[in-house]
């Protein structure tokens, strides 16, 4: 249960940040929640909604697969998930070590991810240790 509570806190944090918005008409954005496994309940029709100008949907469900275990995993989960879930890693085909290095550098230089040099080195080493053609298992 403790792990579950932590997850809710993270998601709440992301969501609270997202509400600091001055975009016209934007009532809520970036609301995510853990997605369901197995059977999925049908959505209730919106017949009870108010006939006003607000058009809403539920939170976006997360379906994030587990990363390979190994040194650097927690750094990846922390820094990479500031902007995107680690599904962006597991979705890729096995990529050469040089490509993973370039991807990490792109996140820092092009997209402005604020990752200390030492952490970036460990993140790159982790990705190369688990997600190249030679190393990928899952």
């Amino acid at each position, binding site marked *: 249960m403790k*792990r579950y509570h*932590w*997850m809710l*806190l*993270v998601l709440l*944090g*992301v969501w609270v*940040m*997202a509400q*600091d*918005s001055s975009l*016209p*008409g*934007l*009532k*809520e*954005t*970036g609301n*995510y929640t*853990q*997605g*369901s*496994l197995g059977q*999925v309940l049908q*959505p209730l029709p919106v017949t009870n909604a108010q006939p*006003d*100008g*607000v*058009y809403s*949907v539920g939170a*976006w*469900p*997360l*379906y*994030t*697969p587990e*990363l390979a275990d190994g040194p650097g995993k*927690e750094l990846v989960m*922390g*820094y990479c*998930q*500031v*902007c*995107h*879930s680690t599904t962006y890693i*597991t*979705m*890729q*085909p*096995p*990529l050469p070590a040089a490509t993973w290095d370039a*991807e990490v550098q792109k996140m820092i230089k*092009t*997209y*402005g*991810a*604020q990752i200390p040099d030492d952490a970036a080195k460990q993140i790159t080493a982790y990705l190369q240790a688990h997600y190249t*053609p030679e190393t*990928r298992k*899952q």
Partner: protein
Amino acid sequence: MDNPMHRRNFLQRAAGVLAAAGMLPWVKAQTSSQTAEALPSFTGPGPNPYWNGVNPFVVYPQKLPLLRLTDRGIQLETPRQYFRTAFTPNEAFFVRYHLDLIPNSIDLSSWRLNVEGNVEKPLTLSMQDLLTRFKPVSVAAVNQCSGNSRSRFQPRVAGGQWGNGAMGNAIWTGVRLMDLLQEAGVKPGTVQLQFQGLDRGPGPEGKGSNAFIKSLDWNDPVLQECIVAYRMNGEPLPMLNGFPVRLVVPGKFSTYWMKHLTWIRALTKPDDNFWMATAYRIPDTPRGNTTPADIAAGKVKTVPIGNVNMPVRSFIVDPDGSSKLVAGLPVEIRGVAFSGYGRVTKVEVSLDGGKTWRVAQLGDYHGPYSFRTWSFQWKPTQPGRYTLAVRATDEKGNVQPDEPVWNPGGYLWNRIERQDVVVGTAS
């Protein structure tokens, strides 16, 4: 430009996510009991051999189960079976976001479409204005991701590992972009029109990780065809497809079809933001084809993918190889075809892997930018293994090639598609 996420917030958010790293529970994929064996969880370093990507089914608001590429930001692929018809259901239409702050709720009482920049009279239009002050028009048009079929590339390239399902066709209804611009009065000196929606990311302002922004050249003839669409297949747009309005750019890849469209800006200088200057660029070569060696040598000049239209493509939807066919039992080979360069004039089917070709029957014509269905009646008489193939030709004479394409972005795939089938005996 308004931005919800400033540097301070980015750091706060980074701290929050970091604090909880290692504590997140993980989703364990389940193997469907529908099949004895599931697809692998990834493909590579060889090409993905399957029609769709190998990703699992997931359920999102306003959507039927789709194939999850990524869950934050959200990228969902349409399963093959939804392409049996010329129009793709809204509930099954693919989803592709670049950033993770995706609207969950929009208030039309304060939402406005802004037409601004180098114009005589800036406009601030409500949904009511769009519905009542401008003549509605409709177009049937295919919306296809630039990276559709990226998982076919050899060598593989990083990016969304789509199979063939990052596409869909809909009847889009809304107001002509040019009607809005005429009312605003675009001033001389305009070189591009810039489009921006309500989705944002947590990255620093001015970076591609903060906002997704695209521009089209002011002299591009496609502007005459563009629609600011508030209806999709006769319904309001699903949130994940751009509610309340999105830009429709017939014949061009989806990257220009801005979702949650809220700003249209007339620019006097070419847009040099990340999403124009760095991303979504293709080699300035036939088919956008190049090699890893030429890229590494820095020899390749690139242009925005908007400089080209979508190349001609066709797809086999049935039979899909999920079960054996029966010798002597007729089967309908069928699917869809389209081209960004105009009407599909011919679809040909091969029963021998592409050695010989026979003309398929074309379905109804819904306009030059739409899917066109095709079908071919086949009665396999001999048990065995067959490789079916399909190729389309458009009105400009473009024929699908059998050579692969390669570029570092994973764009513009349009090689001939194949489907292996097994025919069993009836006796």
